[in-house]
């Protein structure tokens, strides 16, 4: 009965259009009332859920991303990507993916990536005769790369959800090869679609121009080196690297590029506050929801059910992936990480899956969920940038979903893709 109230009120509130955070919080509140427990516990969980030091990485990476978009770092990275891969088949599509790869090295947010890279690329692609849905599809799906390439604050959320004992540096490193693999598979797909549709290529601007663009984008690229090198050589911890990214982005945009007037700085700050508050309120309310699930012993029962279905790790991993994909279509990434990690991680480890490997699977899987309706933050951003409806994007997005899913399966069943690189650094 308790579970019916919890999930019933959650879905009902979701259906009447209540913001997701409040659906989670109010559903927990109602269930606690029904069970006759003191309701104060809901607000204790909410407050504790967000009072976690490692969560500071989220506002900082979002803030850094906003500063980079407004302060010209993102545009220069896109220009460099254009010179590098624009001459390939489906040129600007390839540029879009390459730009996501580069921007992903400085930002950990797929939504920031879609609005930054999409905001710059989609209008250009439209002007060069690409179909808008193609431009939007590439923008949306390639943003998942930003989640995989370090830094990624979702890896930090996962590490916290896993009990705070996983090395964030290892998780960061583990995402690199899967992120590159995803980029390659999307580039191949973009090439294949472009060839069928006869999309144009861009002329190669020449080595001289490439060099000039490289120099111009250098400060942005250096940030990638600072973040990764700094974490790996002990200047700062992984969650502190987010802070260094903000300070560095401020220095570069204000002093080197001189492209960040006061008014833009204020807007970037307000924007970061808005996004952060939205994301972290969901995390806080998901903490109430997750607490109730634990209290009602849902994870334990689920483990028993899964174990009764099969004892084959391949089957279990496939089932977990499918459940996560389904959940991912309905809910956003960070609350799902917080809610499902305590449920699925014990199952996965019981079947011999490394927790770091499982983290990579989970981030990639839920990243796909960000690009699927009905709840897909990145898909919404992409459609808003391209001014098309979700259904218009959905008609032609399938090859890109396919590429992302194929990558997910490879990453799931070839642990070395995730675990080899961290072992090299160890």
């Amino acid at each position: 009965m308790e579970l019916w109230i919890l999930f019933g009120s959650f879905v009902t509130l979701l259906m009447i259009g209540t913001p997701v955070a409040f659906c989670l919080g109010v559903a927990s509140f109602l269930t606690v009332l029904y069970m006759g427990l003191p309701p104060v516990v809901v607000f204790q969980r909410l407050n504790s859920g967000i009072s976690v030091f490692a969560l500071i990485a989220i506002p900082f990476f979002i803030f850094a991303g906003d500063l980079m978009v407004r302060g010209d770092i993102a545009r220069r990275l896109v220009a460099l990507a254009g010179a590098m891969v624009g001459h390939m088949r489906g040129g600007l599509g390839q540029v879009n993916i390459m730009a996501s790869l580069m921007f992903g090295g400085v930002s950990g947010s797929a939504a920031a990536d879609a609005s930054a890279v999409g905001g710059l690329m989609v209008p250009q692609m439209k002007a060069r005769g690409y179909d808008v849905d193609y431009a939007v599809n590439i923008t949306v799906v390639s943003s998942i790369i930003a989640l995989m390439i370090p830094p990624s604050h979702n890896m930090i959320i996962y590490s916290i959800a896993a009990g705070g004992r996983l090395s964030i540096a290892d998780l960061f490193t583990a995402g690199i090869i899967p992120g590159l693999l995803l980029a390659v598979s999307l580039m191949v797909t973009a090439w294949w679609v472009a060839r069928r549709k006869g999309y144009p290529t861009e002329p190669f601007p020449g080595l001289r121009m490439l060099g000039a663009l490289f120099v111009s984008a250098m400060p942005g690229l250096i940030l990638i080196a600072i973040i990764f090198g700094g974490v790996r050589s002990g200047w700062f911890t992984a969650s502190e690297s987010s802070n260094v990214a903000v300070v560095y982005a401020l220095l570069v945009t204000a002093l080197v590029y001189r492209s960040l007037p006061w008014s833009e700085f204020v807007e970037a700050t307000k924007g970061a506050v808005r996004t952060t508050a939205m994301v972290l309120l969901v995390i806080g309310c998901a903490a109430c929801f997750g607490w109730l699930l634990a209290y009602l012993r849902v994870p334990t029962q689920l483990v028993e059910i899964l174990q009764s279905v099969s004892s084959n790790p391949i089957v279990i991993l496939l089932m977990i992936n499918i459940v996560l994909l389904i959940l991912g279509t309905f809910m956003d990434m960070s609350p799902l990480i917080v809610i499902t990690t305590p449920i699925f991680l014990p199952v996965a480890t019981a079947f011999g899956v490394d927790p770091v490997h499982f983290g990579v699977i989970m981030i990639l899987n839920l990243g796909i969920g960000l690009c699927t309706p009905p709840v897909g933050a990145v898909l919404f951003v992409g459609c808003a940038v391209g001014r098309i409806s979700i259904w218009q994007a959905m008609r032609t997005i399938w090859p890109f979903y396919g590429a992302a899913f194929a990558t997910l399966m490879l990453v799931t069943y070839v642990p070395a893709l995730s675990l080899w690189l961290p072992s090299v650094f160890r």
Partner: protein
Amino acid sequence: EITLRSSDTHPDGYPTVEGVKAMAEEVREKTDGRICIEVFPSSQLGEEKDTIEQTQFGVIDMVRASFGSFNDIVPVTQIMSLPYLFTSVEHSHAVLDGPIGEEIAAAFEERDLVALAWYDGGARSFYNSQRPIQSIADLEGMKFRVMQNDVFVDMMDALGANATPMPYGEVYSSIQTGVIDGAENNFPSYDSSGHAEVAKYFTLDEHLIVPELVAMSKTSWDKLTPEDQAILREAAQNSSTLQRELWAAQEQESLDKVTAAGAEVITEIDKTPFIEAMVPVYDKYVTTPENKDLVERIRATQ
């Protein structure tokens, strides 16, 4: 039929979890299954401070937590968490199993918590990646991760080392990359966290021997009949004996494991200079006559 929910931050199989499970088994037998204690391990219901609050509210019925987490709620536990107060784990047993233990239990009762059993949390010691620490001089200038607590920060100051607060999950890579030189914990955690891989010098200085306890919510306790209360108390006492044995065994096992893996454990150190260096810390935190008396009595207990 009564179900009691008990929270623990440690994973299944850990001595504290096994202790409460043993208690649950004994209670189930003696009440013919009328009272069932369910243990929620691995911080499923929250961190220690949160689950203590939940127990006070009566949201959950039992909690296993360290004295350190009660410092804000039951002030006397602050005294019991001072560095180098207990000279050995046996000393802490002698104190808690005697009249002082009863005084402390009474202090818990005032805050809606019924102390059922004292458990062992082992002794915390320093480990680092740089050099074997034999004396205070060896600690000079080293950076250690400590828990976010003013007492520990002052303790590190008094020893001439730098206290660095940071989330537990970042300690491994921070030692590995040199953000910090080391951390401090007991053997089982030193082993299970993998920190032994990156910080191979362990010095058994036993600076913190902080007891733990199993406490029950006053609300849940008052709902039980006196007979059931007696059953619970006895089962809790028995589980305490078992938990202390399990803990000792776990410590030995972890010690063997880390030494086999190449960690260097320094056991023979003179603790006297360390204890003497704590005078300013005690001056700062032991201010009232009652607390001074308590410290005296603890030190006098054999």
